[in-house]
């Protein structure tokens, strides 16, 4: 790839506009990553309003400040685990602009005085290109590590646990990784896209960053779109209307039955919600968020209950197996939903799904049971009429997709 123009950075294409494979190409196009002190960096990121793009949407400035306040030197970890089955953005970024992600690590590492910079790549990612990129850069070498762990492998404390040579299982949240992480050091874990966004923000400043998105939810974000269209990764401004994303991705709107926003821990939205803007302000009334930037489209011909039951079953199987309420409750919840997905099911199953949902929420070390319970709640809400149809023994599904 030879595109070195930075002109597209004036539009909505930012991190995806950078397609620089070699270090030389990258520096020619964008210049070197600026050196900032931790105070300068925290101020910059805070005034830009950058939030984590890995799913939780936590303000990045606060995350940096948490480790900067420590007396011990922090470790910085780039998270490209991409455990979310429907997400393709980490892979896309590491393929198209590996140096941009590495720049982000570099900026954080220098500001925090870190001696260890790690980039963790998940099992669906080929790290060849980013390894080559890391090797040709001057300065501190980024340690690229190929890891496993499935859906929860990218969960912050499970990732740290794996990097510490243990199993990829979440740790007790009462001791967060920003206090005790890699080798007991305070650890900052940042998603690959967050690092790429930071690399551009550090070069072009907060006003530039805020020139896209909404005042409360600024910038652009990557969104992996799938279903009714070949899977693609788009970069769009925060606050873009849902319908606009579907159109950009080439989804035939008349064929949309529902959309799942935010991935398998996400929320179903009805087709009538096309006007909703993908920003915190508009999504919170639906209890929804863009999560790690995932939009999956369900065809009008498909049964939302069947698809949801399959997802819940997958999620139950992806549990780390540590916490009792999750180990016992999640398979039961998935099984109950699966039985409900068969037309002519027992009406008592509806209340049973609700009861089991209540039993897993807030009772795991990580958010896996909570995220799954939220997904199941939205299934029961958005497909409520279809649940009634199933209880009458009816289902419109004509073909299995």
């Amino acid at each position, binding site marked *: 790839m030879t595109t070195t123009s930075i002109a597209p950075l004036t539009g909505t294409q930012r991190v995806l506009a950078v397609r620089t494979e070699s270090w030389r190409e990258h520096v020619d196009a964008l210049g070197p990553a600026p050196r900032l002190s931790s105070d300068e960096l925290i101020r910059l990121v805070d005034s830009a309003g950058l939030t984590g793009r890995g799913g939780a949407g936590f303000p990045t400035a606060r995350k940096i400040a948490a480790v900067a306040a420590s007396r011990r030197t922090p470790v910085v970890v780039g998270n490209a685990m991409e455990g979310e089955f429907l997400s393709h953005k980490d892979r896309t970024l590491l393929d198209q602009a590996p140096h941009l992600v590495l720049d982000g690590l570099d900026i954080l590492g220098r500001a925090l005085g870190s001696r260890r910079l790690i980039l963790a790549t998940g099992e669906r990612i080929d790290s060849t290109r980013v390894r080559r990129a890391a090797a040709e850069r001057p300065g501190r070498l980024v340690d690229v590590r190929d890891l496993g762990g499935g859906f929860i492998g990218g969960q912050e404390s499970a990732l740290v646990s794996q990097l510490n040579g243990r199993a990829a*299982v*979440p*740790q*007790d949240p*009462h001791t967060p990784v920003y206090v005790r992480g890699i080798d007991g050091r305070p650890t900052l874990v940042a998603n690959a896209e967050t690092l790429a966004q930071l690399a551009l923000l550090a070069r072009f400043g907060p006003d530039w960053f805020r020139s896209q998105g909404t005042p409360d939810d600024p910038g652009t974000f990557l969104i992996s779109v799938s279903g009714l269209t070949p899977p693609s990764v788009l970069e769009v401004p925060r606050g873009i209307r849902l319908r606009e994303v579907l159109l950009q991705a080439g989804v035939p709107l008349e064929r949309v039955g529902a959309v799942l926003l935010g991935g398998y821990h996400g929320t179903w939205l009805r087709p009538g919600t096309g006007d909703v803007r993908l920003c915190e302000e508009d999504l919170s009334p639906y209890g929804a968020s863009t999560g790690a930037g995932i939009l999956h489209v369900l065809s009008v011909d498909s049964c939302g209950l069947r698809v949801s039951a399959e997802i819940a079953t997958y999620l139950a199987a992806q549990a780390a197996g*540590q*916490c*009792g*309420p999750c180990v*016992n*409750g999640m398979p039961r919840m998935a099984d109950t939903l699966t039985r409900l997905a068969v037309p002519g099911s027992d009406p008592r199953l509806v209340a049973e799904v609700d009861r089991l949902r209540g*039993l897993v929420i*807030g*009772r*795991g*070390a990580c958010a896996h049971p909570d995220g799954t319970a939220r997904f199941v709640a939205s299934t029961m809400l958005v497909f409520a009429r279809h649940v009634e149809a199933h209880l009458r023994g009816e289902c419109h599904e004509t073909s299995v997709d």
Partner: protein
Amino acid sequence: MRRLLIDRTRCDGHGSCAELLPELLDLDEWGFPISLTGERDPAVPRSLAAHGERAVRACPLMALRIG
């Protein structure tokens, strides 16, 4: 207010905590503690401080602490 912190990664459902602190904890159908206060980590009122300490000591997996 001090809270009863449950390390869910350690808890194995022995259930002694709920026996010693029935005001704050119940057990689910599998024997794992449920907070009765609506909080993830139930606040321990001063009147229950001694019982709380006993529950912490009684847990065979050291999955409880007060902090």
